[in-house]
Each structure stands twice: as C-alpha cells, then as structure tokens.
C-alpha cells in the first residue's frame, strides 16, 4: 500500500538499540529489540518529555534516559506503578527494510 513508507534498513538500527527518525512534523523513536522486532513510538516520554530513543532497550521495553520510566514498546503504555501512554505508529519489516505507516495510528495518548 502506498501509505507504507520505507524509512531505513533493519541493520541501520542497532540490535537492542534505537534511532531517532525525523519527519516534517514529528520526532519518532525507532526501536529494534534483541529479537529483531521493530517498534515506532513518539520520541517523548509522558513524564518529563525525555527522548525515548536515547534509552536502554530491554525485552520489549525502553527505559527513559531522564528518570528511568519504563515504556512498553508494543502498547506504548508506561509499565509498573507509573501511569501514562506514548503514541505508537505502525511499522513492519520486509526483506530487511523497515516501513512506517503514519496513516494507521495504533493508539492515541
């Protein structure tokens, strides 16, 4: 479908790491887990706005670099006793290329 935009090769994102992705209006954090799953979330922690793309990725979660809030990459929900939610975006990996679909908003904060 035309709404899927190729944005990067999978190997441009380090395993258990992240890249920041800039669009004209958005800052998106692109995560790659240890199992090579890829997730896209708004690059802004619901707590104090920390850049999630700079956090440590572990299992399917990222820890915000500012105050260590843990965010589930799948749902965008904040884990544990803290509350909050981050926008997630649809991504898929096909033959080593990562595609993003901004038309399909998976959840709203």
């Amino acid at each position, binding site marked *: 479908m035309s709404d899927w935009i190729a944005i990067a090769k999978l190997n441009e994102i380090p395993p258990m790491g992240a890249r920041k992705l800039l669009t004209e209006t958005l800052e998106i954090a692109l995560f790659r887990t240890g199992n090579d799953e890829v997730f896209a979330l708004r690059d802004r922690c619901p707590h104090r706005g920390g850049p999630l793309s700079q956090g440590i990725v572990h299992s399917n979660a990222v820890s915000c670099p*500012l105050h260590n809030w843990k965010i589930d990459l799948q749902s965008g929900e904040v884990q*544990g006793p803290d509350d909050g939610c981050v926008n997630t975006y649809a991504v898929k990996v096909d033959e080593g290329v990562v595609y993003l679909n901004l038309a399909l908003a998976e959840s709203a904060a």
Partner: protein
Amino acid sequence: MSKQKLILIGNGMAGVRTVEELLKLEPEMYEITIFGAEPHPNYNRIMLSPVLAGEKTIDDIVLNNREWYADNGITLHTGDPVVAIDRISRQVKTASGNTLSYDRLLLATGSNPFIIPVPGHELPGVVGFRDIRDVEMMLESARQYQKAVVIGGGLLGLEAANGLMKNGMDVTVVHLMDILMERQLDKPAAELLKASLAESGMNFLMQAETAEILGDDRVRGVRFKDGSEIEADLVVMAVGIRANTELAQQAGLHCERGVVVNDTLQTFDPRIYAVGECVQHRDSCYGLVAPLFEQAKVCANHLAMLGYGRYEGSVTSTKLKVTGIDLFSAGEFNEEEGDETLVLQDPAQGIYKKLVIWDNRIKGAVMYGDTMDGTWYFQLLREETDISCFRNTILFGQHDLGDAGHGDETRVAMLSDDAEICGCNGVCKGDIVNAISSKGLFTLDEVRAHTKASASCGSCTGLVESLLASTMGEGYAATPSEKAVCACTEHSHDEVIQAIRTAPLKSMRDLFDYLNWKAPDGCSACRPALNYYLLANWPGEYQDDAQSRFINERAHGNIQKDGTYSVVPRMFGGLCTANDLRTIADVADKFEVPEIKVTGGQRIDLFGVKKEQLPAMWKDLTAAGFVSGHAYGKAMRTVKTCAGKTWCRFGTQNSTGLGVQLEELTWGSWMPHKFKLAVSGCPRNCAEATIKDFGVVCVDSGYELHIGGNGGIKVRVTDLLCKVETEAEVLEYCGAFTQLYREEAHYLERTAPWVERVSLSYVKQRILEDEVGRKALFERFQYGQQFAQIDPWRVRAEGAEAHEFKPLHINQMRAVS
C-alpha cells in the same frame, strides 16, 4: 500438560507471601488452593494491636482481598479447615469431609497462644491475643466490663494492655519476671518503659506467678502463688506462642517445637514444605514477620523448581507498637564477658541507647525514647560492619555522619505529614505513610516503586527506611544485606563478579546463560553493571556493548533535561594555555553554544549542544589536542590542583605537576562510579583533596595519601591511607588503590561507601601490607589502561558509531527507495 496441584494450609502472612513470591517466579506452574481456618482473607496480623487500640480498622489491615485470590486463579476455602493429611495418597481432608489431592503441600499453620493450664483457664472471659476473633472478643468485653488483667509483660502483652486501656478499661499487667520484655530489653530500658506506661495509667504486678483463674460462669479474678488476689472481668493470656504442629504431627512429619525444616524449607516429606511460625529451622522458631518473609522467598524459589536460594536463619529486631513509645532492640543486647558497651543515657528526656560491641562490631542494641537509628544499627549488626572509624559518634546516630544533609530537626517520627522526605521527587511523609498502609508495602523497593521516594539520588533512603519501620513496626523487612543485582536475578553483585572471574565469563550472553538470568536481555539496571564488570575483568578481550550503557556513556556527553548534551574537554590537572581557551572559544562560537560554565572540577563545560553536532565539535577539539573529559561517565573524572609551588609561597612539592601525572595515568578508565582526584601543595589543602576518592596532600617531607572521600549527597572526609616519599610511589599507590576499587566495589558504589563496607583496615592490608599484591594491582591497572586510553571523541569524530549521532529522515529515505 496439566498443572501441578499446590495446596497451602494456612491463609496467613507467611503462606500467602510464599504464594505471592511463587506467582512472581512461575505464575502458571501450579493450580493453587488455599485453606484458612479463619473466615477472613489474608490480613496483617502484626497490625492487630493498632486495631485493638482503635487506630486502624479490620479493613485497613487486609493484605489480599478476595478479588486478589480470584484474579490469580487461586481457590480459597475459609472456614473449612483441613483436619487431616494423608501423605501416602497425597490428599488432604477438610472438616466438612471434602478431600483434595496435591503434588506439593505447603504448611503455614502458624502458632497458637500459649494458655497457662491453671485451674479456670477455660472460663469465659479468658482469651489469647492472636486473631481477629480475639480482638473482637476483647473489644466486646471492653464495652461491658471494667477490669482487665493481662498475664505476660512481653511485647504482645503490653500491646494488648495498651489497646484495652485505650478502650477505657482499667488494666493490670501481671509479669513473672522483674523486668518487662526481658527478651528484648535490658533493665534500664525496661524501667523507662514501665515508668512511661505507668504514667499513662497502666498498673503492674511484677514477679507474680498466676495460680488460678477465679470465677464460676465467667472470670471474676486471678489468684497468685503467694495467695493474693486481684479482680478481673477479662483475662488476656499473652505469655507466648507455640507453633501449631497438630496437623503435621498427625501426618507423621518430624516435629520438635515446630515442624522441622531444612534450609530449603522442606519438611522430612520432600513433597511437603513449611513456612512461618509453625516452623523450626536450625533449632529456632520465629514469631516476627521479617524472618517469615525471608523464608517465603526461599521456599517459593524451591516450589518454582529453580533450586537455588537457601534460608540460613535470621537475626531479628523488635519494635513496640504502642503510640508514643519508641523502643527498639536487636541481637544480643545483654553484654557478656569480653564485650564492650556504649551507653547514652538522658533520664530527663527519657532517652536510653545501648550498643553491645565485640571486636568493633555491633552484637546487640537496645534503644528507648529515640529509635531513629535502630534500622541503621540493625544493618551494621547484620552486615558485621567494622565501626572503628565512627565509633566515637555512633551513639549520636547516622545523621551525625552527615547522612543526607538533613539536619537534626528532621527526626522522622516528629515530622508532620506534609514534611518533604524526598527532595528529588517531592514526596511528603504523608504520601509515604499512606502508600505503606493502603497498598500494603513492606520493602524499600516497593515504596520506591509506588511513591518514587528515595528512587532518585537515594539520599533520603535512611528516612524512608525509618518511616517504613515506624509505620510497620516489627513487620518491616529490612533490605537484605546481600541484595540481588536487580529483579532479573537472585544473584548478588559479589556473586556475579565471582562468576565472571572463575567460570570464566567473557560475554553478556554467556553471563545471562550461566547465571540463569530471568529476563532474556536483562534490564536497564543490570546491563550497565554487567557491562562494567565484564570490561573491568577482561580488558582487551571483552567487547564493550554500547547498548548496555546509559546514554551519557554511549554519546560521550551529558544528556540535559531538554535532550541536548554538554561537552567538557579534558584539561590535565586543570592547566590550560591561551591557545586551549581560544580553541574552546572558537568552538563555542562556531556551534553557537548557548552557555559556558566553569565546573567544580576545574574544567570548562559547554552546554546545549545538539547531539548531531557532537562529532563535528569533537573534530575541532581533538585537532587542537583535547581528549574527552569523561564528565559524563562512571569513570575517572578530574584531578583538581591548587596554585602549586611555582607560584604559591606555601607550596611544598611539585603538586600541579603531580596532578598532571596522575591524570595522565588514570584518564579514560571506567569505574564502578564517578571517581575524582585532587592534589594540594600543602596542608592548607586548597584543592580540597580530603573530599576526593583519592587525594594527595603534599607536605615538606613527602605526600599524604587520602582515600574514600566525596562531596555531594553525603559528604565524607577521606581516611588517611599512608604517607609516601616519592612521586613514583604516589603513582603506584594511586593505581593500585584505583584497581582494587575497580575490581571489588559494586557498580554504582562510590569509594566512600565501599571503604566503609570493606573497612579501612582491609584496604590498608591490600595496599600497604601486601607489597607484591600492590604491585600486581598496579600492573593490572596499567594493562587495562592500554585499552581504555583511546580517546572516544577522536574515534567518533573520525566516523565510528555514526548511527548514534545521525537521525533518520523520512523524506530522504523515500527518495532513496
């Protein structure tokens, strides 16, 4: 595969806690059924005293409501107790005649109050103090009658007496011994307690032995051995508890004073485990909650078939839950021959503190009137900390050591509810106390998770622990001294370090596999620690894992709250030239640096740099000869120096030159935490060397070496390690000390708490007394430095790790693909 069946007999704190721990480890392994004799879900038994005193309601003390059982798929039977265990067919039988089979059985039948079998002990109006029914019965009596006698002047007896008095009864405590709470208090403390209780209206009959309970259809009095009598409408027997072993004995399990278990909480039948007050472990039975929780954790581990974790017994501490009375005791508080005692006594203020010391370690503590530091003393006791360096002030408390900079006025018990405890996260005392009681929090970690108190800088940890202790009373399970690295493992830092060395483990994956890490790739707490340990132990072999480093160490700059970075170029010994300053000024102009500041470590900090700009900025800086200042890392930071002998009329040695040499030796090395040095040219100590991790104070005859100091949250002045005569020795001792710290401290432990933990005498033994060992440490340090002194800025300016600094752009890629 069908699930195995686990039956828990006893719906109390120890049993249910074990189930909770088990669910954390293996939520799906068992189909769980719980039998409780009482008609209530699990409640906090240690809070019965405040319920009796009218300070809490029954609802307040419920720990697991019925929804909790349903949500976790647990079948709960209340009011239909198990009456028999058939071990051969592995079935239990209940009072109503039901039978149910098990694969594993957990006994947590608790204990019964001991009722002295004197004539009349079965009369109506004679009660123990054990469960909600007893409390309801006492409250009922208080409404109808006036005179109460409590037999037993121990912890439970005094709490019962206090509660009855609060309900308007006229209470007399009868005690066999001449001092109250003799198992917890020495004579002076017991006298203070008695005086204070007497003042509030409690009556005492000491050294009185009960002979008979008088009455016909209800109790009306008590007669003693000496023939004297006292009137009573209610008699509470609180002379002790006996482990409830009835079921176990019937089933033929080996019992002595309790059901005998081994270090895995297994009974003599391998399918049957037991925890809590019904248990006898290594000849001890416990009636306090902290040991029960330790047992629960170990038992759950074995029920989950993980097979490690041993319970090796507990040291216990006691607090009395009587409002307005502060009392604490732990360990062996009655001195024996060869022990020393430290005593602080202030009768006017009603304060008494005694520590029993042997070989500079605390054996026992009794405190009355001011128990703020009970938790601290208890920790020193359990960890067998050498107290010689603060022995002369220990009785004045931890705050006297400079804890947190919170002054004397913030005595936690006296604080109002809106007093701020955690300055980082703005958490008040009221928030913490509410969270503890409403959410049923037991440990420091839980309070951190729910309130954020002490979760940032940690300086208020002591205060939060005190709040936990004062809110929970004896229920407070102090943080274990051998803490697991994080929730991903049961292993402590020391165990991990040991495994890395002896297994040996040289990659993160090997480590996760070898130590059965629970999360497949760890978490943000353990990965940086493990990365450090691997790097420190296998320099040159271990491949540093960028994704296991905090962003500051990955980006080689300090992330600021707006997501920009700060850049601090290294200036060896704080020296610089006009050209250096020009380079920095040019860089600041070129990259439009919004703010420049001089740091506390004599460096220049450029703030507000965008991450994308970092490599280009580093290119200009490294071209001019700068290297990274590592101001962002758990690493060697700076060597601070004073004016020095070249200019200063008081200077003794070439202190500035020595500072430069020390920085050349140590820059680039990764550490468990940040690490700072300083060299002062004379004892005026303008470089503040005595609050550094390693400080040198030059004197006319040589160099004094100081270790283990820091400014910051908890200021600590260094300890003097030794005096040496040459610069070469300074370098060698510095390298050896640094390496010892790098090899043995826990990740995120600065030298100050590390030196306190392992003791100064240990460091002296390794660095001063063992010359061969010192030289070997120094050699290992130098070996590691070969790999560490590769400037991270230069390699990144030349293109390494480019992806870290370049964002992806959506439009660009669309054009490419």
